[in-house]
């Protein structure tokens, strides 16, 4: 094998390594971004359900309070 073959191999390895690493980072960032969005969605949904539950509790307490007030 001649000098040029080794030269091409060395530069090929370096370029492939760098480009491959950038693509790997981009793929990991993409997958993480999807998972973070999903988790945020789940958390917001859970908080909304908890908020509704809390709202219902407050409304029923107020209703009982009004009933008690009118009876008095």
């Amino acid at each position, binding site marked *: 094998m001649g000098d040029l073959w080794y030269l091409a191999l060395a530069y090929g390895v370096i370029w492939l390594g760098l480009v491959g690493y950038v693509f790997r980072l981009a793929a990991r960032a993409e997958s993480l971004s999807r998972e973070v969005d999903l*988790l945020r969605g789940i*958390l917001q949904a859970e908080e909304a359900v908890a908020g509704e539950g809390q709202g219902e509790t407050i409304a029923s307490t107020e209703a009982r309070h009004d009933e008690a007030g009118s009876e008095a």
Partner: protein
Amino acid sequence: MSGSGLTTLDRPRANGVLAALAAVLLLAALLAAFVIAPTETEMGDVQRIFYFHVASAWAAFLAFFLVFLGSVAYLRTRAVRWDILAVSAAEIGVVFTSLTLASGSIWARSAWGTWWTWEPRLTTTLMLWLIYVSYLLLRGMVEEADRRAAFAAVFGIIGFVDVPIVFMSIRWWRTLHPQVVGTEGFNMEAAMLPALFLSVAAFTVVFLYLLLLRTGLERSQQEMVELRRRVRWRQEGGG
């Protein structure tokens, strides 16, 4: 401002600027290495491997120096951003050390007739690679974030001891490896220096670009862990 000193709006712009600058400098370095730099009289064209090989080694040293700085800063302040800097720089340093070992091995096959020999520069560089691969593997074995960061910081500081040993190995021991920087300056033709400096500048910018990408990734990963913890807590009836 975020912990890294870049706002979320600045980060994509900084990424774009660094990527463009890295591409321009890499192309200029290639042009300088293949067109402007003269052919070395003894080794011929295969000597041109040297420009990106040295630049890659420089980027690896720079990365491990940042691991060292990040580790010291973490132990002093316990701020997570220093741990993020250290782990990101360590991973990038391993990539650049791998490229240095691979390109050096290819050059050695042509110049010395062997892919590998246990001479001091090669052996200490392989040790450097193993130290930081172990650093990354060991991080994955500690569950608790604070303990993992503290443990990694100590490892990152001790591991850096090998960097000056790698650099000085060709002066301390008898070696086959060419000595680029001697006690009296650069041991090479002046006409080769622009290609070397351009390659080093290009790899420095590539390193900064990768560091920006990798630290952003690490922050997203930490956000994901925190979100998972909160979702689990909610589902178990918390709040």
